[in-house]
């Protein structure tokens, strides 16, 4: 039941008078109008901040050969600190232009990261260096924990995954070692588990709950997508004719040792999170089961010889279990974001499996006709279920 319906029911039950209901309706309408104009201000100032940041970066980048190194570094540093300082002033000191202040803080953080990359350009530091992203992370972390703003939490999560990608590509000597490249998603999975539990610990501190939630939602999305990749037989199935050159063994050893070490950290964090959690609720138990199974499957997948398709089935099972747990937790906590994520995982899985199983089996025209019917019907069913759940959550 929505708010209007709720107010109407209060009037009909005599809880409130019609005049009070009218006041409530007009207040709610005013609040909605206010929220809408705030959203416009936030959108405009954020777009403005990003455009300004891009402009400064492009100005320095395009003219970098005409200005010597130190003035450029000085210009960027002073610009970055001024913008961040202005944001801090508007948001926390004067408290006059809160939304603009927040946008300026975002711009300050983006400029800080841009400054690092431009210094790397000025001194010709190797392209795609993961160290640069790590330096960005070092600067974003204190902003996240002092502002406690979800936006910066999201930025930090994205930077973390970006760093992980770069560090893997740079540090592991892939060459043309396909076998090792195939095992890469596993490192993403175990790292996601670590970030997931790190996010969980944030829930113990009320002020950091929003940040913890952002970490968990990001890891959930990445875990789901990476698991989806691993559900393909071509990715996690049997590998024939493996040529174990010295380079393959060396690259695989590096990847395995790193992954097992990260998995061990994830395991310790998971155990601590589970044991230290005072509620020991069903949803926390299921979270622990799925993540620990994920860690075990990932490590076994890396260390066991790839002579069987069993891991394809295992990752399919984990994907389905993850979707069900997300749906269950979302339902129990009346959290529509989690329910939507579970529906997204289900939809994408069905589409992928449909293509996977029937592409070779059907005539192309039949494949698309049948697929279209299934998609439309599935969409209707999922959307009606989603609405039903949402309606239930809104009921008092």
């Amino acid at each position: 039941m929505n708010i209007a319906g709720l107010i109407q029911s209060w009037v009909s039950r005599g809880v409130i008078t019609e005049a009070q209901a009218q006041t409530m309706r007009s207040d709610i309408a005013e609040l909605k109008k206010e929220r809408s104009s705030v959203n416009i201000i936030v959108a405009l100032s954020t777009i403005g901040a990003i455009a300004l940041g891009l402009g400064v970066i492009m100005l320095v980048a395009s003219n970098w050969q005409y200005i010597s190194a130190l003035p450029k570094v000085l210009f960027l540093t002073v610009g970055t600190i001024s913008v961040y300082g202005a944001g801090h002033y508007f948001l926390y000191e004067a408290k006059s232009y809160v939304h603009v202040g927040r946008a300026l803080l975002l711009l300050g953080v983006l400029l800080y990261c841009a400054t690092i990359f431009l210094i790397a350009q000025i001194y010709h530091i190797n392209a795609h260096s993961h160290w640069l992203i790590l330096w960005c992370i070092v600067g974003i972390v204190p902003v996240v924990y002092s502002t406690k703003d979800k936006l910066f939490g999201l930025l930090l999560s994205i930077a973390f995954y970006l760093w992980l990608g770069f560090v893997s590509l740079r540090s592991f000597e892939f060459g043309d070692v396909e076998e090792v490249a195939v095992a890469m998603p596993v490192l993403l999975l175990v790292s996601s588990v670590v970030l997931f539990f790190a996010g969980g610990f944030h829930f113990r501190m009320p002020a950091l709950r929003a940040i913890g939630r952002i970490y968990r939602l990001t890891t959930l999305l990445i875990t789901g997508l990476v698991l989806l990749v691993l559900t393909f037989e071509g990715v996690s199935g049997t590998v024939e004719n493996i040529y174990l050159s010295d380079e393959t063994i060396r690259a695989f050893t590096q990847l395995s040792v790193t992954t097992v070490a990260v998995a061990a950290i994830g395991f310790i964090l998971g155990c601590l999170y589970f044991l230290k959690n005072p509620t020991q609720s069903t949803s926390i138990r299921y979270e622990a089961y799925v993540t620990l199974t994920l860690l075990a499957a990932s490590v076994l997948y890396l260390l066991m010889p790839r002579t069987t398709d069993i891991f394809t089935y295992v990752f399919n099972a984990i994907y389905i279990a993850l979707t069900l747990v997300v749906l269950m937790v979302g339902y129990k906590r009346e959290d529509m974001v989690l329910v939507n994520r579970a529906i997204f995982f289900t939809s994408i899985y069905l589409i992928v499996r449909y293509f996977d199983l029937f592409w070779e089996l059907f005539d192309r025209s039949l494949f698309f006709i049948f697929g279209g019917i299934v998609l439309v019907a599935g969409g209707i069913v999922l959307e009606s279920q989603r609405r039903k759940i949402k309606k239930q959550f809104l009921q008092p």
Partner: protein
Amino acid sequence: MTRKHFIIIIGVWLSVIVGLAGYKQYTVWTGTTVYLRTIPVDPRDIFRGDYVTLSYEISNFNSIPFTGDPAGSNTVRSDIYVVLDVQPNGIATARYKTYIRPVNELYMRGRIYGYDRIEYGIESYFVPEGTGRNRNIDYIEVVIDKQGAAVIRGVKTSDELLL
């Protein structure tokens, strides 16, 4: 966020920025300038516009003789030091490589990648937008400090170096 938090954030940012730029600028100010023979290829960096990927004659691990104990030559990504000979025209060539940091020699600190590649952290040269593909580069002007760290200063053709 209090004013104290603000100062901490700015302190962290300044430390990173000054540290990163200062480390490279120190090499530029205190190092020895040499020219290294190079072979460029030309990709693009999503963050920073055009750059030229560089490989040097001294990037080939197997072409440089070993001095000292070669034990551990299969070590993954170990640091390696390449001692240079500098000709009167400034062109530097590798004399030998070693796992032990040389004393009283001009050397570059590198890392072994794959079977036969040494990287020195100077494998990218950033150029103005759109000029990378047409660029003729024979030599790279490099400044090397006493710790073996190198920073690119510029590029030269054979003609410019009056060969």
